[in-house]
Structure formats: C-alpha cells, structure tokens
C-alpha cells in the first residue's frame, strides 16, 4: 500500500505533533499514577494537561493562514481586494452583517476555535494545580509528609483508630489508666459514646510540633 518511505512520512513527518502529544500524555499519566511524591504527581498532572493543550493547538495550525478577521487589509495574499471589490466598500461602512465566505476565501483563514478553547482549558488547569498544591500543603501540615507511602501508613493508622467499635474501645479503656477508669465509672452515660472529636484534637496537638521542628 505504501511506497518506500511513505510509512515514515505518514507517521513521523505529517503526524509528528500527534506523536509528541501522545508521548507527553503517557509521561504525565505515568507520573500521576506511579510517582510516590505528591508534588511529582502534580507535575505529571501538568504535563498531562499540557499534552492535551498541545493537541488542540496543533489542530488549529494552518500554514500561511491569517487571523480570522474578515477584512481585506488583513489578507497577506492580497486576494481579497481583487476577489471582490465591493467588499472593501462594505467594510468601510459602519454596519456590515456577516456573510458566508466563498470556498477559496475560507482556506486563507486559520480556525481560531481550538486555540480559544485552550484558553479556557489553561485556566482550568491553573485552577486545578493551585487547588491541588493547597491540598498538598494541608496534607503536609497534617501529616508531615508528602511521600505517598508514608502518608498511606499514617492514614491507615488514623482510620483504624477511628473505626474501633465504641463497645470494644470502652472495654479496653479502663485497663489503661486509673484516672480514665474513675472518670468512666463516674460519668457512665457519657462514656458509652466516646467522643471521637477528643481524640482528633489530641492527634492534632501531637502532630503540630513535628511540623514546626
């Protein structure tokens, strides 16, 4: 089907932009999924989004085309003036309603839409990145690490502490210290439902000096 060298042409020269975007996309995806450091994950996320932006921008590229504002002066090839002399007169007027472009004229203009879409996508990407960085900061404040494996260990420990049945927790608490036992028996009704908020605040207190040091 292809002549010699045609595959090379087809795949690398004509569609080089698609290759680059796919490679970038995969690099970003790999970093997001398998990197251990949360910041590296976010770098991967940025690469991922940039790859998509590259894809859209390369869609709209047209060599030798001009900005899509329909005015004769903007036409670098000077065809429009000779093409339709009435157009310049219409443009000189105050109001000119949009007209359908003729087949030949359309080819001279670049399609602005993919680029305009990417303006929005860039804004979304920046917002996502900012929010994710803020979250990372919160995670670092709370757990003192941005490495995922360390974070997971700490999270599991915290979840396990919280999800202990209140009945079992009640049985085990009197054994620990005498003061809690005295308290537990004195305020029997309250101790049936141990307050998870209390343990939360203590855990916060213990973790906060670490963050400062």
């Amino acid at each position, binding site marked *: 089907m292809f002549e010699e060298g045609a595959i090379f042409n087809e795949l690398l020269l004509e569609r080089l932009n698609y290759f680059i975007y796919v490679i970038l996309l995969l690099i970003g995806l790999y970093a997001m999924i398998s990197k251990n450091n949360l910041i590296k994950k976010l770098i991967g*996320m940025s690469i991922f989004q940039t790859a998509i932006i590259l894809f859209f921008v390369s*869609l709209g590229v047209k060599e030798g085309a001009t900005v899509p504002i329909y005015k004769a002066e903007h036409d670098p090839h000077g065809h429009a003036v000779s093409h339709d002399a009435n157009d310049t007169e219409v443009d000189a007027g105050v109001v000119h309603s*949009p007209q359908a472009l003729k087949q030949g004229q359309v080819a001279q203009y670049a399609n602005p839409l993919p680029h305009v879409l990417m303006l929005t996508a860039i804004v979304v990407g920046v917002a996502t990145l900012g929010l994710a960085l803020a979250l990372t900061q919160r995670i670092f404040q709370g757990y003192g690490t941005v490495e995922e494996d360390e974070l997971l260990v700490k999270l599991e420990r915290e979840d396990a502490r919280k999800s202990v049945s209140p*009945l*079992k927790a009640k049985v085990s608490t009197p054994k620990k210290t005498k003061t809690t036992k005295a308290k537990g028996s004195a305020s029997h009704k309250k101790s*049936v439902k141990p307050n998870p908020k209390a343990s939360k605040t203590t855990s916060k207190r213990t973790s906060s000096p670490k963050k400062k040091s």
Partner: protein
Amino acid sequence: MTENAIAWIFIFPLFGSVACAILGLWKRSWCYPISVFCMIGSTWAGIETLMQAMDSSAGEVSYILGGWVLDLYPRGVGIEFRADLLGALIVLVVLGVGLIVTIYSKLPVQEETPNKEAIFYPLFLLQITGLAGISLTGDAFNLYVLIEVAALTGYGLIAIGSNRAAAAAFNYVILGTIGASLYLLGVGYLYIKTGTLNMVGICEVIEANGLQDSATMQVAFALVGLGILIKMAFFPFHAWLPNSYCHAPTTTSSLLAPLVTKVMIYVMIRMVLTVFGVDFSFESTLWTQVLPWLVVIAIVSAAVMALAQREIKRMLAYLIVAEVGYMVGGVWIYNYYGLIGSIFHVISDACMTLCLFLGAGLILRKAKTTHFDGLRGLFSKMPFTMFGFFVGGFSIIGLPPTCGFFSKWYLITGGMVAQRWEYMVVLMFSTMVMVVLFFRLIERIHLAVSESGENLGHGHGDLGLTKEQTKFDEGPWSMVLPLAVAACIVLVIGIYNQDVVNQIERFLEPFNLPKGTGRP
C-alpha cells in the same frame, strides 16, 4: 421573566455565590439566607423550565446564551442550552436536592467548619451551578468546563473539613483530572471529525456524512466514555469515592453523594443518545459486549465491599458505587425498558441517597461516632430521623411504595427483555445484600449489646440501656424537616411514578430503541 427561565437557573446561584463571597467577608450570618433565597429562585426557574419543555410540542426548550444566533449558523455561534425532557428532569432533581441540602446546612456548617461560611457557601452554590449546567448545556466543550467547575468546587468542599478529608480529596483531584482530561481529548477528536461542538450538530454531521465507521469516531467515543466512567466512579475507578464522601463534612457529602455520580450518568446517557447517536453507540460490539460484564463485576464487588464496612457513611459510599453499576448496566443492555429504568433510577437514586446522607448526618451528629455499635437506642431517641433514614434505606432495597422499587422494576424488566440474565441475577444478588445491610443496621439500632459484647436485647423495651440513652432527643428542626421532605419526595415519586415515566418515555420515543430481544 419566564421566557428566560433557563438562564435564571444559573443566574441565581452564580450571582448568589459572588454575593456570599463578598458580603460574607463582612457578615458571615448573611450567607445562609442568601443561599436559601438563591436556591428557591433557581428551583422555581427549574420547575418553569420543565413546564415549558413539557408544553412544547418537540419536548424541548432551546436557549442560546446572549442571543448569538445568525441565519447562516442556526446552531453555530453562541453556546446553546437545551432543556429537553431528560435535561429538564435532571436539572430539577439537582436544584431540588440543592435546595433541601441548603436548608439543612445551617447547623452542620456552623458546627463542623466554624467561621468558614464565607468560603463554604460560595463553593456550595458554584457546585450547584456547575451540576445544573452539566444537565442543561448543549455544547460539548462547555460540558467539559462545567464538569471542571463542579469538580473543582467539589474538591474544595470536601477538603474544607479535616486534614484527613484533604488527603482524600487529593486522590479525587488526580483521578478527577484524568477523567475530565480524557473527556476533553475525546471532544478534540469529535471536533476534528465533525467541525462543530454543538451536541445536536455533532449528531447531525455524523449521520449526514456517514462517519459511523470512522476510526477517529471510535477513538473519540472510547476517550469520552472512559473519561465519564472515571468521573462517575464506575467500579475499577471508584477508589476516590468512599474516602472522599466518608471524611467530607456532612453538608458536602449530602450534596455530592446524591448528585455528582448521577449527573455523570446523565452525561453518559446524553453522549450515547444525543451526541454519538444510538446506532453508532450500540453498534460497536466492544462496548455492548464488555460493559455489561464489567457491570456484573462492579455491582458484585461493590456490594460485597459495602457488606464489609462498619461505618455508616463508608457503607453508603460503597452502596453508591453499586448503584452506579445498576445504571450503567441499564444503559448498556441496550433496551427500551433498561434505559427507562436507568433514567428513572438516576432520579430516584438521587432522592434516596439524599435521604440516607441527611439521616446519616443527623445520626452522626447525635451519636458522635461513625461506627455501627455506637447507634444503640437511636430508634426511641430520634424516631423521625430514623424514619427518614430507613425510607431511604427501603428505597435502596426496593420495597414497593418507594421510588426505588419502580426504577429497579424497570431495570429488571429491561434485563429480562434483552435476555441479559447475568444482569438480572446480579441485581437480585445486590438487592439481597442491601436487605442484609439495612436490616443489620436496624438490628444494631433496635437491639442492644452490653458493654462486654453479649446480647441484652429481649424486646423492644429492654435495650440494656439507661433511660437517659433512650430518651426522646430529636435533632434540630432545621435538619429534621429537610430529611422529612426528602423522605416524602421518595414516597411521592414512588406513588406517582407513572407521571415521571411518561415524560421519560416521551423523551425516548424518537430514538427507536429495541423493545424486544435486541441483542446486537
């Protein structure tokens, strides 16, 4: 005002969020009334839109933002908002749930995130704007932007709670971004091939030019589908959901849990029916063969994982994952009744999940623990809350007067007609699991266990609890009333199910779905 009803749906919460952000700096207590006012206005506009869509002969209302219409490009220039019957129904669900949660939010927001009202309510209203926009937009790229609006505010609303919630939200950010970006990529391929972003326009171009066999379209469909499946927490991609909803503040989880996954299922239905067209979507054998089996795996594993949980909110989160499996299955068995069931289940699942999460919020507030064992004696303590909670629970199981029964009925009918026996078996299995889940919960709440673990409950009155623990102690009315309303809605939709189904049938009429055994 009524002819611009679609625009008012967005204007109210959008400007409300700005007003909350500015006035909230000055007086935090104003945020709540502003939000309630905006949601009432928006819900009114939603009802008006649904009325207009029902009255119009085509069953849809179109609104081009800013009136950017040219004779040359009837669909081309502006961003179109289209409220067909499906979109109008879904947007009304979004706004109704939003209104109920807004009223509910007064105390939980003050208690769980003190002094953060000026941050919370703008995000909350923007979230509703995003979700309502997703359900009405007629533009594929605009849909991406609105998905991201809803997602970004959702991350913020989850992380506003504890540090644990922030860690859960981080996973959500990573997976949510992958999902939305894949969707965007798919839209890019669609644009290459069709040259338009308008949903109906895309469908027209596909049909006019016979693009069904094009490889580019297959790639676009795969990317869009994969992106949406990630966003809706379909089983292998569900990892972000349980942690996020479990650790989020009460108000956040009551808003996000009923809506986000359901709205994404709506997007899938929209893509399959309106954008790619029925012929294209169901002709590709890969999806119609593989997805129903993935659904089977999804429902079974989510149900089993729900069974393993010992905390209410986490259990409910896994239930949502299972319900997502129901609805995806209902679409992909490719049958008229399956799709009716799927759409109806989106509506009813939103209502019953709302009930469950509102109830769970009240229970957790009172019991101060998330574990099942901490819930003893709550029936006599807060009867109204438990009533609302278990109306939602019975609807999830599918007991008759609730809406969950009817939607599940249609799903099972669809499975039977399409001869997808595996889907029916799995639905039955999952129903059994949910019976176990909720009756186990009732048993925990009704029967008491002594501190050493032995069973003390001999009957209703003897719970092994002190009188103080079983004394009537209902939650505040600003939280119980919304729950009661939500429970009533579940029952009312169940009783008047035929009216809802009629509208869904009217929407599905033009698509010529197979009503008999339609295995492709």
